[in-house]
């Protein structure tokens, strides 16, 4: 159990998928203008990443058993696309406001590298099922933390700071991300991901 918690903590802090692996940058930059939307996007990613990892694990076991592991990329992508499709239907029906706020980025979760990366990482690191769940959930929470942190800073800066015109918007967002990333390096050695 302690091992699982360690993986969980590690994937949020010192192995944060957004700030140390620099993955999932596209929605991270685009949806981080307000904290509200960032939370929504983060929750959607948590949902998709965790569910797809949980579905992909037994599928990968099947691939291993049949000796067709070369198909993993293809099969993972199909599962991810289907999960996103399902999420889209769900949001469209029950939370249309959020569906509209996401706009084009909801279908784009399909190509958010975080989702595929988590599935590929559990293969590389030869995790057990429990470890996979802990890792995928942790990574997604890590991404959620990153986008909400970034959005919080951006929202405040938009109101209070006098950002030079050339840097305003996405430019300053990249610099904030870099500083955040540096800050997260401070967690190095805190917990082991293996």
């Amino acid at each position, binding site marked *: 159990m302690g091992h699982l918690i360690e993986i969980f903590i590690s994937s949020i802090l010192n192995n944060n998928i957004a700030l140390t692996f620099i993955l999932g940058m596209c929605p991270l930059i685009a949806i981080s203008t307000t904290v509200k939307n960032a939370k929504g996007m983060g929750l959607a990613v948590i949902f998709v990443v965790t569910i797809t990892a949980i579905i992909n694990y037994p*599928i990968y076991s*099947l*691939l291993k058993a*049949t*000796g*067709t592991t070369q*198909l993993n990329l*293809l*099969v993972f992508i*199909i*599962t991810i696309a*289907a999960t996103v*499709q*399902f999420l889209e*239907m*769900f949001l*469209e*029906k*029950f939370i*249309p406001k959020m569906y*509209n706020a996401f*706009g*084009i980025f909801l279908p784009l979760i399909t190509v958010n590298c975080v989702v595929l990366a988590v599935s590929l990482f559990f293969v590389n690191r030869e995790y057990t099922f429990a470890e996979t769940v802990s890792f995928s959930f942790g990574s997604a929470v890590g991404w959620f933390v990153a986008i909400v942190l970034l959005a919080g800073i951006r929202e405040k800066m938009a109101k209070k700071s006098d950002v030079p015109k050339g840097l305003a918007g996405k430019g300053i967002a990249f610099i904030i991300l870099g500083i955040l990333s540096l800050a997260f390096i401070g967690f190095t050695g805190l917990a082991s991901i293996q």
Partner: protein
Amino acid sequence: MNVYVPIIIVGVLVVITLLLILADKLIGSSGEKVLTVNKDTKIPVTDDDTLLNTLSKEKIFIPSACGGKATCGLCKVKVVEGGGEVKPTEEPFLNDRERQEGVRLSCQVKVRDNIEIDIPKELLFAKEYKTEVVEMKELTYDINLVRLKLIEPDTMEFKPGQYAQLKVPGIEVIRAYSIASNPKETDHIEFIIRMVPKGKATTYVHKALEVGDNVIVTGPYGDFYLQEDSNKDMICIAGGSGKAPIRSILHYLRDRGMPRKVKYFFGARSKKDLYYTEEFEELAKEFPNFEYIPALSDPQPEDDWDGEVGLITDVVDRLTGDLSDSEAYLCGSPGMIDACNVVLEKHNLPEQQCFYDKFS
């Protein structure tokens, strides 16, 4: 090769497709909604399709050139209630005023709840027609007359001055052209189409279209048409292929014995740009009420031209008196119309008696 490879690929695809279909059945459709068009027509809708598709199923054809991909920006409708917020895909096509009025791209609005829209009345009468080209005539070196026989449905009721849309097969380009024929003749329509260099639709019409070809036309559209109840004097000004709607209007008036005094100015560069001159001169001979004034801005020496010379605006300025009790009908390029409006205003034409159709 491992036999499991195809089995797994196909298996995963089939299972996921089935699951998605199941999910769609369970949470996809959300009961019956009501689509209200122009306050009076209520259409029950059961699926979650886009507004554009829902309306076309109800035989209401909103102009659209891209087929629902949010790239042409033609399918604008005014959404009075419902429809959600403007989507990022629509942003580039809407200006501030349209946003305030609730204008949306109908291909991007899904009918998920009750929704109320306002569309121009004439769109309700617009239909999609299958037609056959029965005549192609060269009017000038760059202007062609295209005569279409309506096949399915076989008649179109239109007001003189309105336009229809021609669909270019294969590349899904849609262009609007004024109807040049007599509104009495409901089973045929005619377009006067000028070749635009590099224009997709005009190149198709001029280079590829032949007698016997089938084309799809939708219409009629447009709020530029003859005010049939009025009996004010008329001044018509056209340039280039702008003769088309005026010709339709004049056909209509001729059939009624030219009850109104009409002055028709046509501006062209040189004699080779003039067409239908005899037709209109004969009309002028027949009815003293009608006057045809072609004007050339740049007559060539070989033209042997003894008519009016100068820019159409100058000619109109010179030959018209007070217009406070007249109606004006203008057709041509936006530049020509703007210039004419200035001149007409100078002659006291009230704004609400000025009708125009900008070709762009």
